[in-house]
């Protein structure tokens, strides 16, 4: 039987606010335990939550970015359960009425094997504001567990998709797209190691061609795309094997172990809590007006999908190129700056996605850490365009600039890479080459096209690589035609 995997994601994005969701305490990562736990974070008797307006703005931004319905009124609810790192004994979240309703994101799924790359729309069910819990610290204290409440109350936006994904690569493409988007609109720092962006993945399988969903298991807290791929692939295989062996799937929450590459159930549905959600009487319903939305919208940058469309239209870039260049705001900014500094768009796109990306990948750097600025790249590309240097020479200049050897023109001069474009000089070189290689000339005239390329190579060699290849071609063609 052929199986189909069905995947939905719930992503917790930590919002980039100054303070906590419901108090003024700082949320800076890595502070000494409990130094960022104010009376609200500790849940002292009598304290009350006050909603962080900046967090609300982040949620509105996200809603606008995915073209979502942003209802006029949403409600904060209490999710009740006991845990030592949950100081109030309840988490303030949103249940029935979330701040962001239905929306969608378009993902680019890369080619793999025989399958070509494709686009797909992933529907977003909702996004809601909530607060993070603290942390239990085991092992630091002899015979005791510690509680660090620095993280307690940190603002989160939980983004929930429809079960729209059908492979690990679609799920990862969605997660990556979302990861880029929340950074693009500056609501999340995207730091996955620090837990600023973490995904719960719901996985079920069903016979291909059927409509009914299988029973799902939820893989909790994946904080790397690599683990996500491994976890989904393992979980899918496990579920299919279980069913094929005549077993059934129990709804459960599972954890992925990166050391073994396996998923393992934490708790089954029978053990699940009854969270006794009810509207938090300490907080008024959240009202979002059209004016609020307009005000937030005015602060938002051009969104990646819009920018991609603009790149295709204005710069005649392919959809693939435009998507790659808008994969992050920094990359798009770098490209735009290169073009604004006077480079043609197409070579700028090629160089950024080619030589620069390759270097960045090797050195594990981000685009904003590139030793070659957009202005420098533009200058290099201008020197190719105005025939000062050949493409080959440009590669040498690029390497030198990357190594920090200086500006484009200085490197060209220093290394003597300026190409020969004086037609008299080129003609003289070609005359020499024709004289020295009569056999090749004969072969060409006998119809062997390859001989032409060989003659070009000889001419380039004779010019020590400095002759303008286009000119060499042209002059050679003319001379051979005589």
């Amino acid at each position, binding site marked *: 039987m052929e199986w189909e995997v069905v995947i939905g994601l719930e992503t917790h994005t930590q919002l980039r606010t100054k303070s906590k969701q419901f108090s003024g305490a700082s949320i800076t990562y890595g502070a000494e335990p409990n130094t960022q736990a104010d009376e609200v974070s500790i849940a002292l008797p009598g304290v009350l939550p006050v909603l962080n307006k900046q967090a609300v703005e982040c949620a509105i931004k996200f809603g606008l970015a995915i073209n979502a319905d942003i209802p006029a009124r949403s409600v904060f609810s209490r999710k009740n359960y006991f845990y030592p790192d949950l100081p109030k004994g309840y988490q303030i979240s949103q249940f029935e009425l979330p701040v962001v309703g239905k929306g969608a994101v378009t993902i680019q799924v890369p080619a793999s094997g025989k399958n070509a790359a494709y686009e797909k729309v992933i529907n977003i069910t909702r996004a809601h504001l909530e607060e993070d819990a603290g942390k239990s610290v085991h092992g630091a204290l002899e015979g005791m567990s510690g*509680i660090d409440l620095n993280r307690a109350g940190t603002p989160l936006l939980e983004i929930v998709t429809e079960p729209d994904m059908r492979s690990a690569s679609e799920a990862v493409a969605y997660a990556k797209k979302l990861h880029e988007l929340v950074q693009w609109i500056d609501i999340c720092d995207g730091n996955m190691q620090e837990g600023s962006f973490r995904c719960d993945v719901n996985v079920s399988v069903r016979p291909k061609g059927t409509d009914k969903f299988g029973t799902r298991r939820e893989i909790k807290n994946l904080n790397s795309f690599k683990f996500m791929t491994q976890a989904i692939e393992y979980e899918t295989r496990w579920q299919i094997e279980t069913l094929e062996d005549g077993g059934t799937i129990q709804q459960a929450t599972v954890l992925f172990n990166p050391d073994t590459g396996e998923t393992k159930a934490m708790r089954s549905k029978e053990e699940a809590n009854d969270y006794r959600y009810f509207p938090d*009487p300490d907080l008024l319903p959240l009202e979002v007006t059209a004016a609020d939305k307009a005000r937030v919208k005015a602060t938002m940058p051009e969104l990646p999908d819009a920018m991609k469309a603009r790149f295709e239209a204005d710069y005649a870039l392919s959809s693939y190129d435009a998507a790659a260049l808008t994969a992050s705001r920094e990359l798009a900014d770098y490209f735009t700056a290169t073009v604004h500094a006077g480079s043609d768009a197409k070579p700028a796109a090629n160089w950024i996605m080619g030589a620069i990306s390759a270097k960045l990948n090797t050195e594990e750097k981000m685009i904003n850490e590139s030793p070659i600025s957009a202005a420098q790249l533009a200058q290099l590309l201008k020197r190719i365009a105005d025939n000062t240097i050949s493409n080959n020479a440009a590669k040498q200049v690029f390497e030198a600039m990357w190594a920090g050897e200086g500006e484009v023109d200085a490197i060209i001069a220093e290394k003597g890479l300026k190409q020969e474009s004086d037609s008299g000089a080129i003609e003289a070189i070609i005359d020499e080459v024709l004289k020295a290689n009569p056999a090749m000339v004969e072969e060409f005239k006998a119809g062997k096209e390859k001989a032409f390329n060989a003659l070009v190579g000889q001419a380039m060699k004779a010019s020590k690589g400095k002759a303008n290849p286009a000119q060499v071609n042209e002059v050679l063609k003319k001379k051979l035609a005589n």
Partner: protein
Amino acid sequence: MINSSLKNLSQMLAKKEISSVEMTQTFLDRINKYNPTINAYIALNADKTLAQAKAADVRIANGKAEPLTGIPFAQKDIFCAKGWQTTCGSKMLANFVAPYDAYVITQFDNAGAVNLGKTNMDEFAMGSSNETSYFGGVKNPWDFDRVPGGSSGGSAAAVAARLCAAATGTDTGGSIRQPASLCGFTGLKPTYGLVSRYGMIAFASSLDQAGPMAKSAEDCALMMNVMTGFDERDSTSLNRPKEDYTRGLSNIQGTQPLKGLRIGLPKEYFADGLDANVAKVVQEAIAEYRKLGAETVDISLPNSQLSIPVYYVLAPAEASSNLSRYDGVRYGHRAAEYDDLMDMYMKSRSEGFGAEVKRRILIGTYVLSAGYYDAYYLKAQQIRRLIADDFTQAFKQCDVIMGPTAPSTAFKAGEKADDPVAMYLQDVYTIATNLAGLPGMSIPAGFSNGLPVGLQLMGNYFDEARMLDVAHAYQQVTDWHLAMPEGI
């Protein structure tokens, strides 16, 4: 002096007839003498109290006095006060010293008032007799065999026995007004949202409201000026212009000062369940109001009979969640020995909470559970709106509503302790205003068999100033509010 109004006490301080330290010491002496019997105070700290009095004297000498500067007040032990033991009447918080001040405490501090101590109360404000307090019951100063009412029983006894100039209370279902009725003084529960709940230990967040407990309407008005105000730390605090609640009092003059006032008399408040003697006193008070020029209108609050069942779904639901933070992890009572985390939770909470609190946590947990939420919590919220709508309709016909505050006078300690439903019925006339968020007040209206009887006033939203005027008019022509228990 102990029977003086806040205004008179303030004048005595201003004229240097007495210092704040002397005035405070007088009350501290009375507390030392009577509190071992009455048990009105849970926490006393004479050093802190007298330090405040000294500071008030300096302030008065510098001409910076405000109306309450230097006057000693009792604070219900539900308010966090920095450096003070703040227990909420529970073993759970018996060892808790608050590291911060509640809004109400800050307001009194800023006004230069003196904090005499923290008063006894039903555990987490759950009770109508003060018998659920971990720190023991409180004696009604009018009859030591009887309860003072609750949950603000300590503040009530302190006001009635003149162990303070006035006190604060909180009212979730009647906890200011019922004790005011049973102990014979004036108490006001303001419109929900007028007094910030910040630092006030939560029982049922959508119902809890702090208010003044004092001898007279005039005293309550002066305290309202200090207690109310917008506080951004409480999201349900109302951002409205500051009011002077005493502004209308001086206009209450002449023989018919209330001419034109329409008093609504809800038939449901004069039906079965009301003690006949209490009914008589209340009717006499209403007759007095007619003499003052008011007219009475028969009205109906048809859904008010559902108040108690609705309240005992909603209040426990909120309480079950509000009290989850008392888990023994960070502060408060933790069991001495336990096997694991779950055992620690269970033992700490079993030991730390009393029976009534446990009962309400169980009810609240039940009504919020999956499968029961719609039938109980959601239905109760719908009826809550109907109850509020009843008042909206009623206030088209009248300006203020009157009736009994409590169905009976003070009952004997232990009389209802084993019958929770009989105890819950103590709040049958007060709960509806909490559910609607409306202001309610109780004023002394006479006696039945030597025990005080309260008249309840209910007003429209933000109509406290008028209610205080109406109460003041009555207190200008009667002296029930000046009566003091004998032998104290």
